[in-house]
């Protein structure tokens, strides 16, 4: 990893294990409910066309010509930061002789996408912005189509009301109408000029070449980086919030949100990762064994961590009538953790499982990129080896200690029409 002039962090993971090369360019900015929708619109409009490839189809055709290069953009929410990702994945020309200079051409296409968007009089094209605003509106509306992710989103919204983190990664419908081609172009220019910029490459390229290919990415515009404000961890309320929503669904979705007060950079984080693993990260975990295997209440019951804001979520799909029993069984497991009822085997299996997952990350370009980008964006320089060592050193006492700081915040239940806890299951 290199820190280059212009606030550019260049990250390179060299390996000859893969047959492809992955490149990502990330612009990071504060997650702001007022601005998030516009930020999310930017990559969508960029994909509509560039000076050299003025339509989405011609840009797609250009990528196809490079043995199906995969040009992509994405918007992520990482803690209270919003990340705009733009990237390209190509076949490594050394692995498929006779295909030409794919890497250089891919960098050229990516540079074109980022720095040469189609504009008119210093604004994005109104027809492209209007078209993408319509696509975004459909995307935001269809959030309700997937009940599992909808329920998680709703739990976060209720739990973090009044905090930046409540904002969805793509912003909100009510902000879309105000988006205007010239202002949006200005939003993008500000992002380019002031956001920390991260460029990553995973693949078999000599370091000198990577630098030569990618360093110019920061030199395309005048840059004056404004550092990002850190994520606020927030506090759990004195009384747990409970929100039950009704829709015409067959299965209820239970999401229980907790605050841990522990985030990346906190020395207690590895113990929290082990905590979540014992509770609900594996098929040997308490939630899987008690909610699914013993009580037969669910097909899935698991826990997961948001490491930047220190949140923990427990998710399970259950019959609407089983809301109370499932909730009780889950709470018993969380209490068992806090009471230190953790066996030697649970510790061992979980550490081994987590270490194995971290080792396996080095087998996938996507996992590698995800592991490093997520950490670098939060200012961490941790390697895979360091992450593994940390996990292996976690003791049972440390897990019990973090269990004390896990506080329930919000229980969200997406139930069927007609009641959460009093309706008999449909037989």
């Amino acid at each position: 990893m290199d820190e280059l002039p212009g606030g550019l962090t260049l990250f390179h993971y060299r390996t000859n294990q893969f047959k492809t090369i992955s490149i990502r360019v990330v612009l990071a900015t504060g997650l702001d409910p007022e601005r998030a929708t516009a930020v999310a619109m930017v990559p969508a409009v960029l994909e509509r066309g560039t000076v050299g490839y003025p339509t989405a189809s011609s840009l797609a055709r250009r990528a196809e010509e490079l043995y199906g290069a995969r040009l992509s953009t994405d918007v992520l929410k990482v803690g209270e930061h919003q990340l705009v990702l733009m990237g390209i994945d190509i076949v490594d020309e050394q692995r498929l002789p006779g295909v030409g200079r794919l890497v250089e051409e891919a960098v050229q296409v990516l540079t074109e996408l980022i720095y040469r968007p189609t504009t008119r009089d210093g604004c994005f094209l109104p027809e492209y912005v209007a078209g993408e605003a319509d696509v975004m509106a459909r995307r935001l509306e269809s959030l309700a189509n997937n009940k599992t992710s909808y329920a998680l989103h709703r739990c976060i919204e209720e739990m973090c009301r009044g905090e930046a983190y409540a904002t969805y990664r793509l912003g909100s419908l009510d902000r879309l109408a105000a988006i205007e081609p010239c202002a949006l172009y200005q939003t993008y220019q500000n992002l380019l000029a002031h956001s920390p910029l991260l460029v990553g490459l995973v693949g078999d390229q000599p370091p000198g070449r990577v630098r030569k290919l990618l360093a110019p990415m920061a030199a395309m515009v005048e840059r004056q980086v404004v550092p990002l404000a850190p994520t606020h961890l927030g506090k759990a309320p004195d009384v747990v919030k409970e929100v039950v929503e009704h829709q015409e669904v067959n299965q209820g979705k239970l999401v229980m949100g907790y605050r841990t007060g522990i985030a990346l950079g906190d020395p207690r984080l590895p113990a929290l990762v082990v905590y979540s693993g014992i509770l609900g990260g594996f098929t040997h975990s308490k939630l899987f064994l008690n909610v699914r295997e013993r009580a037969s209440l669910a097909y899935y019951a698991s826990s997961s961590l948001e490491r930047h804001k220190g949140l923990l979520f427990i998710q399970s799909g259950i019959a609407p009538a089983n809301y109370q029993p499932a909730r009780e069984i889950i709470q018993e497991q969380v209490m068992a953790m806090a009471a230190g009822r953790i066996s030697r085997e649970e510790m061992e299996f979980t550490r081994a499982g987590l270490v194995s997952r971290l080792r396996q990350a080095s087998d996938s370009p996507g996992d590698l990129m995800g592991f490093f980008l997520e950490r670098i964006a939060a200012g961490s320089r941790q390697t895979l080896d360091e992450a593994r060592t940390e996990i292996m050193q976690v003791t049972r006492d440390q897990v019990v200690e973090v269990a004390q700081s896990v506080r329930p915040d919000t229980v969200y239940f997406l139930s069927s029409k007609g009641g959460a806890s009093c309706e008999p299951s449909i037989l």
Partner: protein
Amino acid sequence: MNRLYYEALNEEIYWADLPSGLRVHVIPKPGFVKKYATLSVRCGSNDLTFVPPDSSEPVELPEGIAHFLEHKMFEKAEGNTFEKYARLGASPNAYTNYTQTSYLFATTERFEECFELLLDSVQEPYFTDQTVEKEKGIIEQEIRMYDDSAQWKVHSNLMLALFHRHPVRRDIAGTVESIRRITADMLYRCHRTFYRPDNMTIFVVGDVDPASVIQQAAENLERHAVAPAGPIQRLYPEEPPGVYRKEISHQLAVAMPLFSLGIKDPDQQATGQELVTRTLASNIILDLFLGRASELWARLYDNGLIDETFSLGYTGETDFCYASVSGETRQPERVRDEIIEAMHNFRCQALREEDFNRIRNKVVGSFMFGLNSLDWIANLSAASYFRGVSFFDQFELARELSLDQVSDRLAVLLNPQNCALSVVYPRESH
């Protein structure tokens, strides 16, 4: 032990046919830390009516039996297999689709012990009335989860529309009613019939020694001493040509309608290279017709009819083949009408050599992307083995594909007569 080296890919595959009739494959991947093994059984949700080897009478089992069996193979008299994998630091999994059931694990440590566990657990059934009853609650929640999944519903209704009688019309997990009828006896019967070495195959992918993997499998299979029983007679109803219904719609608590437009292939039966070539050619046709760089895609996108959820693909199985085009849209019927309208013209046009080459190279490229993933290699290898073709041969067939082969398929596949539309609409508000 046999070996084939594919120079263009720098990949190799080893295999051996064991006396029990099982073929073991090993694809070495030096440098990878993960080791991935699958034991796949040619027993899918489509296998509902069959003649067991120990009988001459056909047996019909409830829908969802193959998937139920998959769930129950993890439970043994001495406890559940998940825990044994956990002890070894490995992650086990399994899945059932229309045509096969696969059991698998990924591990970085203690490969031999994990592999032994995989081989034993799939060959040693243990079902009691009590454990079978307990599983019904879990599977019922799995089925209800799918009932709420608009994506799953739009797909399964497309199967209902495209096919008249083929068992692909049945849901993989069965229904809440059908699984209630499943008994321990039925599971044993299904296991006895299908879980035989000559109806299974093994793929191990990772940094392993092929000879010792094959040796270990041979010894394990010998210990279980199941002799080859010959082919299983699977009874499928005769499938008439043409689609069953032009349109099926359903309502769910979604905000945006989902559609899936299917094209039933008039060629329904094929195996081996013929099936692979047909699948490759069909995917290229779909991409030329409706891919991101096509005129039609641009028109539908610019008119706000489709978005980034839009996808297309061809499914080529030995006894059912169809293409599908799916996504979210506010106007499902208009999308269908525009695609069918364009189909009338496109099927009569000559394909351009330049476009064909570009898409064929993209297919070659996507194969290279896939080779980064051990999971992808193992799972696709098992599926192609059951279809009668070696996995890496697909790459060669893609490179050798000619414009003529694709052109020959064009008017056959893109036939408006064979189209059916499945839509999931938002539920009308109350």
